[in-house]
């Protein structure tokens, strides 16, 4: 399968291990990544908050660039960031629902010779795994089942709400896909209070106390539920849950020690890749409870 690949900003910025892990995992699943290297940031909701048309135009441009790759043989557009998925889905909803508006945005793009045609398929890796590749096929490639590993899914916000915009329905229970994937990889799903809540990242510069209280509580809840690690489809959540975890521990007043994995890292471990190849040494919270470094095998906390 060939995809027009949008890695987003953070996976090439403060969470480089995500982009790296994706590059390692892709060939194992026969995914050919054609990177959209001319595209710009999705706006993460902030550009839309500043000027909706600006965000819609930037993302229409990204879609148009992806459609050029689709015309050349890519199957669809793929991203690896929930925030990109949510922000782009929001723009796509407006662009697809109103022809005069789409024409107006395309007018701006026309100077570059680009046009967005309504109805692009833009799927997060998580959706692609379940809907395009299929969990049975993923399961068949598992070399190192995550036996006894207790994994807490952290969905966050952008990839699950609003449900209609994100195409969550009976046929597409996308708000259960992390559960299904952990299960397919042989791990044990740990449910805990914060799995669909906000990591707090969007307000880290405006209200640090509230932001880190959110992150700290969710990590604490997962510890109380005896999870070995969390897995998230969103690198921005990863920043608040991992990079900021020591600070969050200070705010919520309890010690926290919860490794947080990016989705392709969890996948890569099960597919037999080594933790270092997946950039797991770049995390602030060392994934010791996930990895036995001496043997490089996956193990739950003793």
């Amino acid at each position, binding site marked *: 399968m060939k995809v027009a690949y949008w890695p987003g900003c953070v996976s090439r910025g403060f969470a480089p291990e995500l982009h790296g892990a994706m590059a390692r995992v892709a060939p194992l699943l026969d995914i050919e990544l054609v990177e959209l290297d001319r595209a710009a940031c999705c706006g993460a909701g902030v550009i839309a908050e500043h000027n909706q048309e600006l965000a819609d135009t930037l993302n229409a441009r990204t879609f148009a660039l992806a459609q050029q790759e689709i015309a050349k043989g890519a199957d669809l557009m793929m991203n690896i960031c929930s925030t990109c998925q949510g922000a782009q889905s929001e723009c796509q909803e407006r662009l697809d629902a109103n022809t005069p508006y789409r024409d107006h945005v395309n007018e701006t793009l026309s100077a570059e010779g680009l046009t967005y045609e309504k109805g692009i398929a833009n799927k997060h890796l998580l959706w692609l795994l379940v809907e395009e590749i299929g969990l049975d096929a993923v399961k068949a490639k598992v070399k190192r089942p995550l036996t006894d590993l207790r994994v807490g899914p952290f969905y966050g916000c952008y990839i699950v709400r609003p449900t209609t915009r994100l195409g969550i329905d009976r046929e597409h229970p996308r708000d259960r896909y992390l559960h299904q994937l952990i299960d397919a990889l042989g791990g044990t799903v740990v449910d805990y209070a914060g799995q669909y809540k906000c990591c707090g990242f969007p307000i880290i510069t405006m209200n640090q106390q*509230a932001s880190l209280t*959110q992150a700290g509580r969710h990590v604490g809840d997962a510890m109380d539920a005896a999870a070995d690690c969390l897995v998230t489809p969103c690198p921005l959540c990863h920043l608040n849950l991992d990079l900021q975890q020591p600070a969050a521990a200070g705010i919520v007043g309890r010690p926290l020690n919860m490794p947080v994995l990016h989705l392709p890292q969890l996948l890569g471990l099960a597919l037999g890749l080594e933790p270092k190849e997946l950039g797991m*040494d770049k995390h602030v919270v060392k994934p010791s409870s996930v990895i036995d470094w001496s043997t490089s095998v996956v193990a739950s906390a003793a």
Partner: protein
Amino acid sequence: MPDYTLRIRRYSPESGEAAHWDEFPVDLEGHRSVLDGILQIKDRLDGTVGIRCACQQAICGSCGVRVNGRPVLACHLHLDEAFERAADGVIVVEPMGNMPVLKDLIVDMHEVHWKKIQRVTPWLIPDGDPPEREYIVPRDKMIDVTQTMACIQCGACVSDCLSMEVDPLFIGPAALAKAYRFVGDPRDGQQEQRVRDLAEDPHGIYDCTHCFNCIEACPKGVAPMSQIMRLRRIAGDHGIEDRNNGHRHETAFVRNIEKNGLLHEADLLPDSYGGKFHPRAVPVLVSSLPTIVRALQRRKVTPARALLHKHKAPKEVKRIFRDVHDREERYELNLYVVGEEENGQ
């Protein structure tokens, strides 16, 4: 006739007893509402179950509860749909969140919701003397606020607001949507004062964490979070440099992308506080040092990458910023107002 089981959270503060759960069978068809089920329980099995309700047709906003963990109007959810989402076949009904429980499913709307509504000065303050006859307002100037006018004050969005969960003083989605109803009203004369007040409040418009829970919760399509974003845009129009760094963060983000095409995080943090050497930024950067050092230690970021951002915005991206910013008026499509086209359009 199909049977359903409702598990209802019971709590009476005066009793001195802890909250507990009671299960009741309900003998109704699946197309009847969860509220019908609760009322049947009150009628046949236990008259002491507390629920507030009135119209039973999703317009009075009285019967907000959580069903299977999600905020809904009890009268607006069919038993068969609730059953489908019930984890173990039992429909779980509990009071809304973020508000104190008065009894069973009844929460104290006054203590949280209505006080916050009062907070935003929810009435029109026109400039000058009123006209002799009615105000004449062009239709297109008023239509923008119709979305917030659809609010029925049920509190579903307040129940699940994730910012309010960690900051109870957050003004919250319902009250801020109400604020936009007046900020966006062309007859109001206090737009700037209103948005300045809401922007400067540490628990105001910049305390919203963008989690979409209120959009998901609202039974009337008000999309409170979208109204909060409108308030932020208007605060920006008035050039309000709020003490919460909300507007500065927004501006820093937009400029960052205009310059780099992709986000350069190492610049965004200091710029959100006014720039690396601004007195406001220095204490923040100092207090962030442990985090920065950890990131460097773990080779998440290298000093070279943090200081020099290789990626620059293509000229076409810069042109889009220019073109859109140069427009005389913002083009803001609201699907609630214009609706979605039929397929094939």
